[in-house]
């Protein structure tokens, strides 16, 4: 298929960003542009689904810097999974943004919408990358353009959070990704991904084991957006951003780009055979396992709702890495399907946190007693999403946990099985607390009026979060849609 079709979903968000900038003096028109852009983007991604499902790829080269170093795009199952999730959730998030930004009367909304659209567009670019350089290019654009979003409030907390964010991400990419890219080029003579076969990477046979392992470690550290410990603490710091940013970007787009990149590098650069041969997969799995447990424990200690969600994200992202690092079909399925599953559930949770903040101004979990009676829809959605996080059927998180557990058994690793099971318990503890407080706790402080959710602006927030929560259940009952896409990549 012609590669120009592939450029549409990548370009639309950038065009939307430019339009937002041009229409800055007319807020009502300006706010509609991202919604229209999101719908168009999602539509164009969906239109590619049948083609990709039939095993076709669309590939094309935009620029050639040097033989082997190009800006080129191609779309396969893994890319489609991520691109579809990101663009689909952008539609809901762009509606939510309007409600949130207007409810709280935030400043610099034009800048906000511009950076938001560019970040999403770059994520789609990363999803469609055909080589390491293109991936790196979009990865870096995301870093730069999300900085203004994190620093949005322009107060001391905003600056220090944004600074930490930038230092972690830039340092990791400059210190690790850049040499990793150079090393891959020196060893392989190209940066193109081997997209068709996940078993064989691009490394020539008979390379130095040390050099390959170092390159792999640099990649793992360099994609710090995946928030694998010890390079995770930028994520809680980034929670100073407005909630729609935390919701779409720091639960779906930005962090998933990190995870997606790691998966891509493992499957399309190194290939499963090489990783198994050098024993790199299992080490990665253990690192991810540690992250899962430690982050969950830290999450239990946090009383700020967004901070708790942030640490939960750190832990959940590592499920994806863990699953892929098992390098067995079941593990791969469990890991990759967690990309959409976690996205739908976590964005719901953040949407809820934002809706609570906009309606009541509450951030601390201890103040949320009795909130379930003021915001029943929001808290019900929160409950559903929590079930997905814990992995209770029929919500989608169960599918993840099931395949992950099967994957650990395939590798006969009892330790990793215990990690998966024990972390579910921890999830239940820290999400359960919020839910229990909301419905069974005693109200603290001033009495909060009921029927908070009926204001027009609140509806713009409540409807999206209800939709994402319901979709979480739908994917739990009918996971085949995502499964079929993943099977394209993994093979049956």
């Amino acid at each position, binding site marked *: 298929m012609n590669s120009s079709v592939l450029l549409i979903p990548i370009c639309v968000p950038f065009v939307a960003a430019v339009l937002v900038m041009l229409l800055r003096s007319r807020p009502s028109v300006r706010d509609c542009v991202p919604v229209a852009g999101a719908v168009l983007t999602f539509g164009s991604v969906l239109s590619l689904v049948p083609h990709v499902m039939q095993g076709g790829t669309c590939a094309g080269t935009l*620029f*050639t*810097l*040097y033989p082997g*170093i190009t*800006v080129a795009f191609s779309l396969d199952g893994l890319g489609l999974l991520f691109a579809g999730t990101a663009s689909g959730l952008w539609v809901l998030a762009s509606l939510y943004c309007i409600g949130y930004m207007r409810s709280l009367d935030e*400043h*610099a909304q034009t800048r906000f919408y511009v950076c938001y659209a560019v970040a999403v567009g770059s994520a789609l670019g990363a999803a469609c990358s055909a080589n390491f*350089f293109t991936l*790196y*290019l979009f990865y*870096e*654009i995301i870093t*730069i353009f999300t900085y203004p979003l994190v*620093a949005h409030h*322009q*107060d*001391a907390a*905003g*600056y*220090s959070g944004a*600074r930490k964010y*930038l230092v972690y991400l*830039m*340092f990791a990419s*400059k*210190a690790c990704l*850049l*040499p990793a*890219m*150079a*090393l891959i*080029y*020196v060893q392989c003579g190209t940066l193109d991904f081997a997209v068709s076969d996940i078993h064989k990477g691009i490394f020539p046979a008979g390379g130095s084991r040390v*050099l390959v392992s170092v390159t792999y470690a640099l990649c793992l550290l360099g994609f710090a957006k995946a928030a694998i410990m010890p390079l995770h603490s930028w994520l809680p710091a980034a929670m100073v951003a407005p909630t729609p940013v935390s919701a779409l970007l720091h639960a779906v787009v930005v962090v998933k780009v990190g995870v997606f990149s790691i998966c891509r590098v493992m499957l399309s650069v190194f290939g499963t055979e090489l990783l198994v041969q050098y024993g790199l997969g299992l080490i990665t799995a253990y690192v991810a396992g540690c992250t899962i447990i430690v982050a969950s424990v830290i999450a239990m200690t946090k009383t700020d709702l967004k901070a708790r969600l942030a640490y939960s994200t750190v832990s959940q992202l590592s499920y994806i890495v863990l699953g892929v690092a098992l390098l067995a079909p079941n593990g791969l399925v469990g890991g990759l399907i967690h990309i959409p599953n976690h996205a739908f559930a976590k964005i719901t949770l953040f949407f809820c946190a934002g809706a609570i903040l906009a309606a009541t101004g509450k951030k601390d979990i201890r103040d949320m007693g009795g909130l379930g009676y003021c915001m029943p829809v929001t808290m019900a959605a929160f409950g559903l999403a929590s079930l997905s996080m814990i992995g209770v059927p029929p919500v989608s998180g169960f599918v993840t946990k099931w395949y992950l557990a099967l994957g650990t058994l395939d590798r006969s690793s009892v330790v990793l099985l215990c990690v998966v099971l024990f972390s579910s318990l921890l999830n239940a503890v820290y999400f359960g607390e919020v839910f229990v407080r909301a419905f069974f706790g005693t109200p603290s402080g001033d009495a909060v009026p009921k029927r908070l959710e009926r204001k027009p602006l609140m509806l713009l927030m409540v409807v999206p979060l209800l939709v994402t929560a319901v979709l979480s259940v739908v994917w739990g009952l009918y996971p085949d849609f995502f499964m079929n896409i993943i099977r394209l990549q993994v093979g049956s």
Partner: protein
Amino acid sequence: MEKYLVFNSSGFPILSILLLVPLAGAVFSLFIRRELLLKVWGLAVTVVTMLLSLPLYFLFDRGTYKYQFAELRHWIPALKLDYVVGIDGISLLLLLLTTCLMPMCILCSWNAIRERLAEFIFVLLLMESSMIGVFVSLNTVLFYIFWEGMLIPMYLLIAVWGGPGKDYASIKFFLYTLVGSVFLLVAMIMLYIQAGTFFIPQLMDHPFSFINQMFIFIGCCIAFAIKIPMYPFHTWLPAAHVEAPTAGSVILASVLLKMGGYGFLRFCLPMAPDAALYCMPVLLGLSLTAVIIGGYLALGQQDIKRLIAYSSVAHMGFVSLGIFLCNEQGLRGALLEMINHGITTGALFICIGIIYERTGSRDLRVNSALGMVMPLYIAFMSIFALSALGFPGTNGFVGEFFIIIAAFTRNTLVGVLLIPGAVLSAAYMLRMLQKMIWADSDGHSVHPVHCDKPALSDITWREGCMLVVLTIFVFWIGLNPGPLIEVMDSSIMHLLRQVGG
């Protein structure tokens, strides 16, 4: 002698004309009295020179390493001294960089220079002529004349139109460069005594003994290391940059520093290849030191111009590293990095000039929180700063990445030691950007509605035009460096054969 040259089929002496146009323009400018007319005249001369140089790019034969558009006239037969000029892929690119940046230098001084304008235009045009001369000379005597010819105008630029510390800075610049020139002169006399010719391509092919190579190499190397400037000879650069007027800084950063790299490629490597390989570890070490020290010092600066000056030290460390790695990617990367540094750092100095004209200060603490006040300016500044830190998709990335690849190819240790330099470049550039766009020096909250500073106007059309042109180059080279690599490749390959690397 003719076997090294490719003469112009039409016999049109394009290179001599390129030399003479700015020179004639300089002389004529002394007779113009009206200020506006002077500026327009300066702009016209530089633009004509640029337009004259552009056909070189299209007519250049990419398939040969020989010196093209050559002209040969006998000059002093007793000394076997000829007037001979010509360009290859390496000098063509640097020549184009020079001619394309000179109109910017006039434009960025449009309102900044108010006194002695006629002399200013005279000096700038004289400078352009000498710089072109250095790149087209194929004869050590000619080369040396133009090399010295650059020294005086640059000294004047700093000493007459410079800032408060101009006396110190200009003398320091003069002395450092003069010391280097003396070494260069000695090396050139030695070359003549040993080989009996002044003709550079013949000198390249002359087999010097190892001990002679060492003398030649060290003499040339000191001269060019001061110019580029390589650690530990770099201390003149920040002083000169800070005090020079904007046009002076642009010329200094974009072209003058490149003379050092050009000298390495023209003299050190091809004439003394064995000595170069022998000294390689030392030079690689010094280059790495320059990268790290330059970056580290840039990180601590409050003066934006000084910050960029130290970043130049680091970037030129990348260049000299690429050159002395002596492999294909390294040389390509070094030449690309020279061009890119010329464009990016020139643009950054123009940006600093713009803000200096408005706030009268180059201090980061004064020029902070501009994001809301001058959004267009900040957008350009960000593009150039990102290019300087090697952001993918911009020109800065291409050269840097090639040099990193070259370093890893040559020796993994060199590559590993180079990485902190890349990290530092991100650190100081982002620190600068962060402070200029968002907050004051302490990172305390400065809300955009603060009004303690007089309203600053965003960039004007004149400034915008310069920056747009440079931005186009940033992305064009960043995404499509192929044409440039094509131009340089024959010469680079020939150079590699000469070095035997």
